[in-house]
């Protein structure tokens, strides 16, 4: 799992039921949109994430085009937690450190 995917999963798992659009994920993870969209496409293919168009009532009322929102699926949340636990398993040698919201996490390979 790449560092970027972990950042995205961490962000989603911080509030698994919440829907977020692409730019919000950019802000939370600090990743550029050009990195976020391919990751979201892949997570969606895997069934970890689902995406939906925003409620028309909202964007029409605001007079702007609709936004696409992402959310972890029930199954995806569990798989994401397991996958993150796997790469953070103690005993695996951290390749380099990364400061996240939850502290310093080693990135293993």
């Amino acid at each position: 799992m790449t560092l970027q995917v972990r950042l995205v999963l961490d962000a989603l798992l911080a509030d698994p039921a919440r829907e977020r659009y692409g730019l919000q994920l950019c802000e939370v993870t600090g990743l550029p949109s050009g990195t976020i969209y391919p990751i979201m496409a892949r997570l969606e293919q895997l069934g970890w994430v689902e995406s939906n168009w925003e409620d028309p009532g909202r964007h029409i009322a605001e007079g702007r085009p609709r936004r696409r929102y992402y959310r972890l699926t029930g199954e995806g949340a569990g798989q994401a937690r397991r996958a993150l636990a796997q790469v953070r398993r103690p005993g695996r040698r951290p390749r380099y450190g990364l400061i996240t919201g939850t502290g310093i996490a080693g990135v293993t390979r």
Partner: protein
Amino acid sequence: MNWRRPGRAGDGDDLLNDLLAVVATTRPDADARLISRAYGVAAGVHAGQTRRSGDPYISHPVAVAAILATAGADDQTLCAALLHDTLEGDRYSLAALSDAFGGDVAALVTGVPGSAGAPAIADSRAVMIKLADRLHNLRTAAPLPPQTRLSKSRDTLDVLVPMAASLGLDAIKVDLEDLAAGILSRETLRTPASGRVLARAAALLPAPVRSRWRDEWAGELAALPTRRQRAVFTVRTLGGVPQLAVTLRRPPRAG
């Protein structure tokens, strides 16, 4: 230094006086009467003509001459700068120009590349005029169509900046470079911000999902308040389109 003037009648002498003041700072020995005469001819030829900005046309050759005066150009160069566009129409002739100011000034005027598609330039002073001409045109490029601004800016970086460097005209070179690079970056940032660029990039994606991503990006773009933010989003998103195209063509698999 801003040489643009409101387009009212009767401010011509102010232009001349401003120019002579600049000339005096770098060339106290300059022939003010000769320069005034060149100004008078140019002002007569360009009478009634305006630039796109609405300024009287004469403000342009005066500004070009002022740029050259700052660089310490000689009297003939300053006269040729003032007269550099007088042969464009049919109000003034090369013969009249030669009679009034001599063959050297006439050669400089005809030798300004671009003015009459002049071939090889023997006189580096003609190149100096061309450089100053472009410098002032870029400074006042705002009313020009975007395509013209872009092509002039590219030509400036590709051709004129190296010319200025080879002549050792460092101040003009730096100014040209800054102006052209600034115009290019603004124009290239503006174009993608319209969303057309992302819409076009979406063509790289598999057809069934193309419109979804195009709409998704349009939704994000529309929610961004400033042009700069839209430009940054566009550039960053563009960077990921090739990867997205690969991902979307990969068969879905577990794990």
